[in-house]
């Protein structure tokens, strides 16, 4: 495993996360944390990929890390967890697969040769399903930690606020 290459990926992942954070108008105090969470989650995904875990499972673990980290950050920076999770998640979106599936469908409409059609159909469906399942695992990876933590946080925040007074 080339750790320097992984670190370089982390830097770009953070840049991508902050770009989307600004597009979504997040509070200024959260920008630094978003950079960190986006870099860490994406780096975990690329690390698992290098261990040949499989694309969907590595995406799921990266997204879960983002989900749990965003809940911690929400306490630390006083902002809803989704503020951190969504911008950090965007760099993992399977753009290349979706693009290839789309171009494949376009080619299918023009293809007449049955053998070439079969090969193209196989590739297109494979790319499209990969994109679909990666998106599902992204959403699940972020939504499930939030669901686990939700009931606790509401209870935990409230007594603290009362105690402070």
């Amino acid at each position, binding site marked *: 495993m080339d750790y320097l290459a992984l670190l370089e990926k982390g830097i770009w992942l953070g840049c991508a996360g902050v770009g989307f954070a600004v597009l979504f*108008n*997040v509070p200024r105090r959260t920008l630094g944390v978003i950079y960190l969470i986006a870099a860490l989650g994406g780096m975990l995904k690329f690390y698992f990929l290098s261990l040949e875990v499989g694309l969907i499972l590595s995406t799921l673990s990266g997204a879960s890390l983002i989900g749990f980290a965003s809940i911690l950050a929400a306490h630390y920076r*006083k902002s*809803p967890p989704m503020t951190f999770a969504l911008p950090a998640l965007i760099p993992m*979106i399977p753009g290349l697969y*979706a*693009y290839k599936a789309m171009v494949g469908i376009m080619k299918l409409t023009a293809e007449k040769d049955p053998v070439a059609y079969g090969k193209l159909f196989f590739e297109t469906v494979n790319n499209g399903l990969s994109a679909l399942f990666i998106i599902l695992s992204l959403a699940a990876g972020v*939504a499930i930690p939030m669901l686990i933590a939700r009931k606790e946080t509401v209870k935990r925040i409230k007594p603290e606020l009362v105690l402070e007074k």
Partner: protein
Amino acid sequence: MEIVTKPTKYELGEMLLEIGSLLMVAGANTERVKVTISRIAGAFECDSQLMITNHALMITLTYNSKVKTFTSVKWVPNMHLNFNLIADISAMSWKIVEEKWSVERINTEMKLLNKKALYPRFLVLFLVALAGSSFCRLMGGETVEMIVCFVGTFLGLYVRQESMKMHFNFYLCVFFAAFTSSFIVGLYSFLNPEAESIHALSTSVLFLIPGVPMINSFSDLIDGNILNGTTRGVNVLVIAFAIALGLMTSLLIFNLH
């Protein structure tokens, strides 16, 4: 004469609808709207029943006495993402519960909430374009492709902002933006046929991906708000279709495969 000290029913209900619609527009999921509104209504000792659809909010408030009720519907405009507003309203709802705010105070506070964009337009364009070229790098693009992707994303987002200002249909705006971005990259690969451009082409439209509705759709489904989840999911599909259409138009113009 206890009722006199309480807010009139119209004020409270309308304020709750306003808060709910602000949250929906800013990009909150159904559960958050429901929780926030019932939290604030609880602070005024009211019971709130909500019906939330993608474009309308309906509330029925029942006061403790069960004599007074208030029902109203509010139209919710199109989504305009603003996470800062969600964070502010969420913090405000806790303060309302803890400090027993009056309706007047909440109304004045809501006027003070910053609804405008937090970052200057040029900074947003620059950072999103940088994010686009970061994607390009992550997919394996080299420096030249990154620069092409930067320019494509920058102009694409500019076109989307401008066409949104002219009040075009939202999906049409997405189509224009996707077409502009991919046109820039397509032009580059048309002028340099031997240079690699697939990474730039596939990542230049990524800034249009509807990430927030996508995640909201899934979390709505998990929360049991199946109807809202499905509606948001279909919205995501239509946006993705608009992106694909824009990309396809450029591909056909430059005959790239």
